[in-house]
């Protein structure tokens, strides 16, 4: 099936430093998402992105977070500066459309450890 690629798979970073998580969504998809998951628990929505703009964001999408997809390259999540509570697995997802019934395709996640 369609694949979403995430880079890196793991990253350990010192608190206060910047981290960029990269996502290569399914090629013809138009909507992109970031989710946060801690210890295999609930998938927590962070943000969705369409046509170069943030469409929706949750309270978890702090001011230190930003997303972009310059010129159709990687869809990135940047955290600057990082905090200990940012340690989690971050999942990127993409979908063709936004209407109910459009399947979200997820990557395998980027495990971020902030020390």
């Amino acid at each position, binding site marked *: 099936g369609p694949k*979403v690629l995430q880079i890196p798979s793991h990253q350990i970073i010192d608190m206060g430093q910047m981290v960029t998580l990269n996502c290569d969504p399914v090629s013809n998809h138009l909507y992109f998402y970031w989710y946060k998951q801690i210890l*295999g*628990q*609930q*998938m*927590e*929505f962070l943000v969705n992105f369409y046509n170069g703009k943030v469409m*929706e964001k949750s309270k978890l999408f702090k001011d230190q977070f930003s997303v972009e997809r310059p010129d159709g390259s990687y869809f990135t999540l940047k955290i600057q500066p990082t905090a200990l509570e940012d340690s989690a697995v971050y*999942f990127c*997802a993409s979908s063709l459309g*936004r*209407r*109910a*019934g459009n*399947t*979200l*395709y*997820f*990557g*395998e*996640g980027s495990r971020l450890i902030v020390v």
Partner: protein
Amino acid sequence: QQQVRQSPQSLTVWEGETAILNCSYEDSTFNYFPWYQQFPGEGPALLISIRSVSDKKEDGRFTIFFNKREKKLSLHITDSQPGDSATYFCAASNSNYQLIWGSGTKLIIKP
């Protein structure tokens, strides 16, 4: 209220038995309910979904039963296999199309 609730938090059944995973919601505008399956170290993947106009959706060993009046649905996995061991997320989509996720049920199938 936008919550989606799942129970139990974890479930262990023997191979060959039927596993029943429950989900309930509060917002009557929800009209699309996908179930996602997540294996350790992987991202969730769509398993099966149902729309609120239906009361049952079947795909092989996986069946969703939907009760609109009670705002409840359940995922039945018949003839459970060890390979079905995973975390199952119930989600719901409303008229704003945002997907609301439950907290997941961790299913363990014992051989």
